[in-house]
Structures are given as structure tokens and as C-alpha cells.
């Protein structure tokens, strides 16, 4: 039987030991009215070979596109070593490291992850992961509400150029606790936050949420925003792309005092696109807020012989100890993705990561320059950007995307998802994975599509 090792003799002997006649007897506490006898509406099982055929066909249907789509999930080169090591049974099939002595592998790795992530963000503490970037931001908001004791009301100011799915996620996750979410507008020309900040009083606002880069790839003037928020006793929550942080100023160095909480999507660090997950959310903060952190934290300590070792610490923040009073309900997190990210960061090193950022950026510049040289195509926002930019087209972005899909190019994101006025806008991302040929192929396909669309319109 698939995955079940019992022989008939085993079953007989076991029933005998238990003292019943059949396994069915073991379910005799279930009220008979509730018992069902089969799952016959489902199909019969397949063997691994047949399943392999089936899934390979499905995978082929979904694969094979040259990806120029980012919008929160980014294709980067992943060294082979990353998943070959991550996939080792000892990492893959272990549980959460409750029994520290039997989990030193995972625990030390997580401690190393915390170290790298904290250093990458320029902060003191990182937890061991949350579900993803968007839900991590929701946790960051809840954490800020607990941490900012100066604020009178749970009001949060959120950058209007934050990824719309992030905004939706925090709406869903923090609204039940009566937290108010308000928008910090962005400038229609630059795509970045308005240089003029709204008037607020000290203690009006719990925290300001800034995205760096923002949803359009634009780079924000983070120093000014950070200082402004701090001047009004608001905390600063930074939502950042970790690869960008190898190039852009780290949140811990923003303004005079640095961002207070940093979160974001860890996927770019060695995790495949994979239809959206599993990825992982990271969360870093200053030491003073560590007790308000959600999620697992690994601490270094010593064993009874004084030898260094690692264990889950500050567990009193967590649901399995504090229950209703926990900092979050999170239990299972995204450990395996963090394992991959840790190996990724180790393999790349700081300079490698910075090379990835620079090469991605240079590639995006190259595509942007070529595209905006095409008559009818212009850059939508005039701000510095990182590896992702928005073009405005003479037709709907949707039409272009469809046309390029026929050439097996995933052209980008149709920004009409964000607002109907942006329906001629295409958000395009280029990473280090693209060659000059790939970029040329995109440009040619787009030119061709534009001609075709023009002709069709004329017809």
C-alpha cells in the first residue's frame, strides 16, 4: 500500500494487542450517524509513473516564458547548490526546532540567517521568518501599534505607491483590530511620494509605511520621510526588496535614526517564482522593540558543558506559550525558504549580491532606453528607479502583453489592476538573468506588436 508499511500479519497482531476485531472498531466512538464509509466521489490513486506523466504535461503548459514581470516576485539566478542542500532530508523533513538539542542544524542556520538579514537591513534583530512580504507588513503594522506607546490612536499612514496586494493584505489582516489605514499620496509625475508631507500632530500616527523601491520601481527620498515621521513620534516601517538593499541605502541608515521596523518579501534571495510561493516574509527591528516581534527568534546560548548552542528564545511572545496574549498567532512559518535564502546569501556574499543588483539594474536601463526610443512609448514616471519601470504605450498594456505572450515573452504587469487610468501603463522588470539578446527580442517583439496593433486599428 502506498506509504503504509503494514503487512496483513502486522494488522492481525496489532488488532490482537489492542483487543478489537477490526480497524473499524477503533472508530466506534464516532457517532454512527456521522460515519461515512468511503470517499468514492474521488478518483482512484495513480502510481508515481502515471503521476509523473500528468504533472510534466502540466508543468510544460505553464513554463517556457521569458519573464519580464516583477511586481513583487523576481526571477534571479539561483545557484544549484542552494536547493540541492536545502532539499536534504534533514532540512526538508524536520519539524519546527522545539527539541533544540535535536535541531541544532536548523537552529544555527536560522541564527546565521537572522544575522545576515539584520546586517542587510542595517538593524539589530531579525526574526526567523513570517509567511510572505505582504503578511509580514501586516504583522509589522500590528507590532508598531504595540510598540508605539506614544500614539493616541491606532492610525497608520501607508504609501500610496505600495504594492496594491500588500495594501489589500494589511486591510484584511489588521482591520478586525480596529486599526485605521490611511494613504500617503504619491506624485503623479514621479510616481514617488509627494515631497510635501501632510500636516500631523505628535502622537497622531503610529507609523508610516514606506516602500523602497515603490511599486513602480521608483526610489524614494527615504531620509526625509523617515525624519519627518520620527519628528512626529511615528515609527517608520520600511517595505524593501532585499536585493535592492545591496545597492540602495539600508533602512537602518535612513534619516537620523533609521527605520524602526523593516519587512518585505524574501523571495528574491534564492527562491523560485513557483506560482507565488512558498516564499518568506522577513522582519527586522531595533533591539528595543524585540519583545513586540511576532514569529520565531533563535538565540545563541550554551549547553550545560558551556558549549555554544542555539534555541528558540523569547517564546513567551508566542501563541504556544502566551496563547490569547501572544504577539501573533503565527506558528508554522517558512523555514525551508529561509534555509534556501541563507545558503543563497552565503554563496553570493555581499559583493555578489551587489553585483546581482547592479546587473539587474543595468539590464533594466538597457531595455528602458531601447523601449523609450520607440515612437509612442514613453517612461511614465521620471524618478530614479531600481530594476523595474513603467512605460506608457499608445495602446492598452493588456494588448501588448497578449501580443508578446505569442512570442513567449511575459512582458510585464498591466497597471490597470491598480487603477483604470493606468490602463496604458506597463510595469516591466529586468533582472540579471536577461542577456542582450533577450532584451533585443523584447524590443523587437514590442515594435512588431505596435505595428500590428496600429494596422489593426487602421483596418
Amino acid at each position: 500500500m502506498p506509504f503504509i508499511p503494514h503487512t496483513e500479519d502486522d494488522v492481525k497482531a496489532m488488532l490482537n494487542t489492542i483487543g478489537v476485531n477490526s480497524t473499524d472498531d477503533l472508530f466506534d466512538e464516532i457517532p454512527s450517524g456521522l460515519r461515512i464509509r468511503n470517499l468514492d466521489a474521488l478518483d482512484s490513486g495513480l502510481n508515481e509513473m502515471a503521476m509523473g506523466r500528468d504533472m510534466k504535461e502540466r508543468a510544460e503548459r505553464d513554463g517556457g516564458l521569458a519573464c519580464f514581470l516583477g511586481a513583487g516576485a523576481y526571477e534571479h539566478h539561483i545557484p544549484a547548490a542552494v536547493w540541492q542542500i536545502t532539499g536534504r532530508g534533514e532540512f526538508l523533513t524536520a519539524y519546527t526546532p522545539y527539541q533544540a538539542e535535536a535541531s541544532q542544524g536548523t537552529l544555527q542556520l536560522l541564527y546565521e540567517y537572522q544575522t545576515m538579514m539584520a546586517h542587510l537591513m542595517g538593524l539589530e534583530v531579525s526574526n526567523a521568518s513570517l509567511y510572505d512580504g505582504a503578511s509580514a507588513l501586516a504583522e509589522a503594522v500590528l507590532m508598531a501599534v504595540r510598540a508605539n506607546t506614544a500614539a493616541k490612536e491606532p492610525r497608520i499612514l501607508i504609501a500610496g505607491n505600495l504594492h496594491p496586494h500588500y495594501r489589500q493584505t494589511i486591510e484584511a489582516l489588521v482591520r478586525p483590530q480596529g486599526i485605521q489605514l490611511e494613504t500617503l499620496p504619491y506624485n503623479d509625475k514621479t510616481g514617488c511620494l509627494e515631497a510635501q508631507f501632510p500636516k500631523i500632530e505628535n502622537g497622531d500616527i503610529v507609523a508610516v509605511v514606506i516602500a523602497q523601491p515603490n511599486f513602480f520601481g521608483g526610489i524614494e527620498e527615504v531620509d526625509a520621510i523617515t525624519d519627518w515621521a520620527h519628528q512626529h513620534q511615528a515609527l517608520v516601517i520600511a517595505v524593501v526588496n532585499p536585493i535592492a538593499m545591496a545597492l540602495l541605502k539600508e533602512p537602518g541608515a535612513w534619516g537620523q535614526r533609521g527605520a524602526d521596523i523593516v519587512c518585505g518579501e524574501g523571495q528574491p534571495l534564492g527562491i523560485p517564482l513557483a506560482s507565488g510561493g512558498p516564499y518568506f516574509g522577513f522582519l527586522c527591528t531595533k533591539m528595543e522593540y524585540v519583545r513586540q516581534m511576532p514569529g520565531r527568534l533563535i538565540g545563541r546560548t550554551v549547553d550545560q558543558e558551556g558549549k555554544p548552542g542555539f534555541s528558540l528564545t523569547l517564546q513567551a511572545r508566542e501563541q504556544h506559550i502566551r496563547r490569547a496574549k501572544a504577539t501573533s498567532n503565527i506558528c508554522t512559518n517558512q523555514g525551508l525558504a529561509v534555509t534556501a535564502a541563507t545558503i543563497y546569501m552565503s554563496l553570493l556574499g555581499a559583493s555578489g549580491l551587489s553585483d546581482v543588483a547592479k546587473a539587474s539594474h543595468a539590464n533594466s536601463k538597457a531595455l528602458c532606453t531601447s523601449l523609450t526610443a520607440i515612437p509612442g512609448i514613453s517612461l511614465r514616471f521620471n524618478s530614479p528607479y531600481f530594476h523595474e519601470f513603467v512605460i506608457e504605450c499608445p495602446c492598452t498594456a493588456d494588448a501588448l502583453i497578449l501580443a508578446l505572450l505569442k512570442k513567449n515573452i511575459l512582458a510585464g504587469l498591466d497597471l490597470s489592476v491598480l487603477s483604470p487610468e493606468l490602463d496604458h501603463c506597463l510595469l516591466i522588470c529586468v533582472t540579471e538573468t536577461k542577456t542582450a539578446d533577450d532584451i533585443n527580442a523584447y524590443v523587437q517583439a514590442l515594435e512588431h506588436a505596435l505595428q500590428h496593433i496600429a494596422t489593426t486599428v487602421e483596418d
Partner: protein
Amino acid sequence: MLIFEISAKGRRNHLQAPRNAPEANDIPAHLLRHKAPLFPEVSELQVVRHYTQLSRKNFSIDTQFYPLGSCTMKYNPRGVHQLASLEGFLQHHPLTPASHSQGYLQSAYELQQILSHITGLSAVSLTPMAGAQGEFAGVAMIRAYHLSRGDTARTEFLVPDAAHGTNPATAVMCGFRIKEIPTDKHGDVDLDALRAAVGPHTAGIMLTNPSTLGVFERRISDIAKIIHEAGGLLYYDGANLNAILGKCRPGDMGFDVMHINLHKTFATPHGGGGPGSGPVAANERLKPFLPTPTVGYDGKRYRWLTEKDCPQSIGRLSAFMGNAGIILRANIYARLLGREGLCRVSEYATLNANYLMARLQQAGFTLAFPDRRASHEFIITFKKEAKTLGVSAKDIAKRLLDYGVHAPTTYFPLLVPECFLIEPTETESKEELDNFVNILITILQEAHDSPDLVKQAPHLLPVRRLDDLKAARELDLTWRE
């Protein structure tokens, strides 16, 4: 040794980085980073060796018996892992148009159907990223339901004292006050206390069945009636679904909404802490409130259903659509087993638990609920040993590690003192269970003969017992030069 301690300034692994990356001269200098982060500088061999060696310090399903109660640590099929890791799936961007996502969408849709059938509930959203987020979704749906009816008075959630910590924590995240409901001496919910607790403030109850005490809640229909009559709804914590696959269904028991832990019942690997996946299933009443996105099918093509299709949805719980890779794995697992195999899961999980329970009882161990059937798990208590020998459940757990088996869940549920919650799962053999019994007998003997051996355990692991107090007091959370 930490990876930082084998680092050397200036060591570069050029093979993995892009060549000749130009400087980003177009970005104003004040927006750029000025100090490189402290990452290790190590060669590829050093990385491979370091993390390979680290992995070897873990216990895991692939290397050990791992009877961790409530966690369903069963075999994580290698074939499932391989097929979910096919290149076409891995390189698929979550925002790819549906025309080029049919493979994944079909797999997700099929899983929605399978889960709906297994749970007896009519609709499923796969987006929650673990059990706790599934709980959040379900409880938030109950909240949205009451509010949609203008019923704003329902501010309380009932949670049995045996519940998993995520249950009360979740209800609080959803803005509810918690009322704890006690357990009777047979492990069932105390019905009188329940009746006394319900009222117009009752939004609902969160319940696991079989409960975390390892027993089936026999009066579940009565409980459902009490709650429903009071105007509340029932949330089912599906962490223990492995116990009842094909035997009974939460929908039939009267539950309105539930989550399923794919990383338990559907054998997806737990990865040293995750990822999991906690799809939420609801009956017709709560279906409109399911989180987005879900997958729809018109008989020809699969497509995402979003807020536009589901205006009453509680919304979006993550940036994309949940832990897609885990959803793929669960689909593959379920279709490998098929209808027959899925029914066998609960059958053999229950057989293993009851056999182990019987053997341990015969060997003189104290069961928490000796008169009950075990579900897929059961509880033994070392209260007696703690008192007479000064050897705690923790000591015995640590000593088990020395014998190369992972400890069961200890000190949970909190109501049973000095307890082990033992869940062998269906994928372990009789020999493995017998071996475990023999080890426990040996340890009990050691606890009599040389209690210090047990109290000082583990002896044979990479570290001896760790100083958790020091860890919490002298916080050392990151390595600094």
C-alpha cells in the same frame, strides 16, 4: 563554527555573480548604500560543507521516528517533491495570465474539489499560508458573516482549554474576546460549562475533533446545536484531519468553516519550521466570505476568482496566492493515494496510535484517558514518575533523543501534567513502534536505576541540554564581529 567564522575578507565566489556589473551611476549617491552588509565571504565548497554538516545535526522524518503529537510527521514522499519541483512550475510567475497558468490552476482547482469532498464543506480557498492563517481566515469569515447581518454584538469566541495556542491567539487577532471552556475528565468538552457560556455575545467556537487530547468529541452534534441555537458558528481546527479522512466529515458534524493543514494531513514536508499551507473550507453560509483568490472553472478553462468575483470576501491574506508549491504537493499526494489511499490514512494512523497506546499501557505507562480510544494520537503522563523519581517528561524526552528517536510533543496540551502527546502516523511500521516501546521501557528502567542519566540527557547529541534562561536573558540574536 558559524559561517561567519570561516569567512575571510576578500574571498569571492565569482561563479554565482553576474560578470562586470556596471555601477548604478544614474541613482543619486545619497540614496545608495555605503557600507556592505556583513555577509560571510566563503567559497562554494565551504558553503556546501558547512550547511551539509549543519543539516546532519537535525533529527528529521528521513532519518528518525518522529512521533510528535499534533504534528503528523509522516513520510513526505520524494516523488511528490520532485514533481512539484518541475522547471515549468518553478519558473512560473504568480501574475502570469491565466492562459499560461492552466497547469497550476487545474492543480489548485482539483485540490479545492478534493478538500471540499473530504471535509463535507462546499467551497475552499487555498490561500492561507499555514494553519494559523487558515484559522484567521475562518474566524474573520465568521466575523464578516455576523457583521454582514448587522449583528455587531457578537464579540466573544469560545475556545476549549485544550485548544492549540493558535486558536485563542487567532480569535484575538480577529478582534474577539476569549472565553475558555473547560474539559471534562473524559477529555470531552464540558457541556454544562458550554451552555453557561453561550449567549448573544457568542460569535462562535473553535474546536478540534478529535481534540488535541487525542480523543473524539462524541457529543459534537450537541455542541453544534448549542452554538447554532445561540446564533454562533463553529470553526473546526483541521490540524487533526489525519485521524478521520474518509471516516467522518467536519461539515456533517455541524462545522461551518475550517482549515486543513496540508503540511500535516497531506504529507508536505515541514522544512524545519515551514512552509505549510492552511486552506480554508466553508459551507454555503460562509462561502461568500472566503479569502481571495480562489480558482474557478467554467468547464473549459481555469481562472482566478478575485475580489471582483467575490465582493463579500474577507480579502487577501498574502501578496500572491498562498504557498502554491505546497498546494501542488498536496494535489499530487492526494491523487497518488486516491479515494482508497486517503481512507487508509486514517485507518492506519488510528491503528498505529491504538496499538502503541495498548502496548505502552501494558508496559506500565500511565494513559491520560485510559477508557478512551486513541484517535491518531494519545497522551501518556509521567506525573507519577515526576513525583516519585524526580524525572520529568522533559527529561524522558531528552533521553529519547539519545536513543535516536524524536521526542513526542511534551507539555501540550497544558491540562495534562507531565505529558507526552504521541502521534506515530500511518507511515511507520509495527517494528518501529515496537522499538519505541522498548526504548521507553529502557528509559523508565534507567529513571529508576540511575535517574541522573535521564535528568542529564541528552548525552549523545551535538550539544548537551541548553541553557534557555541564559538565551532569553542575555539575548544573542545575531553574530557581530
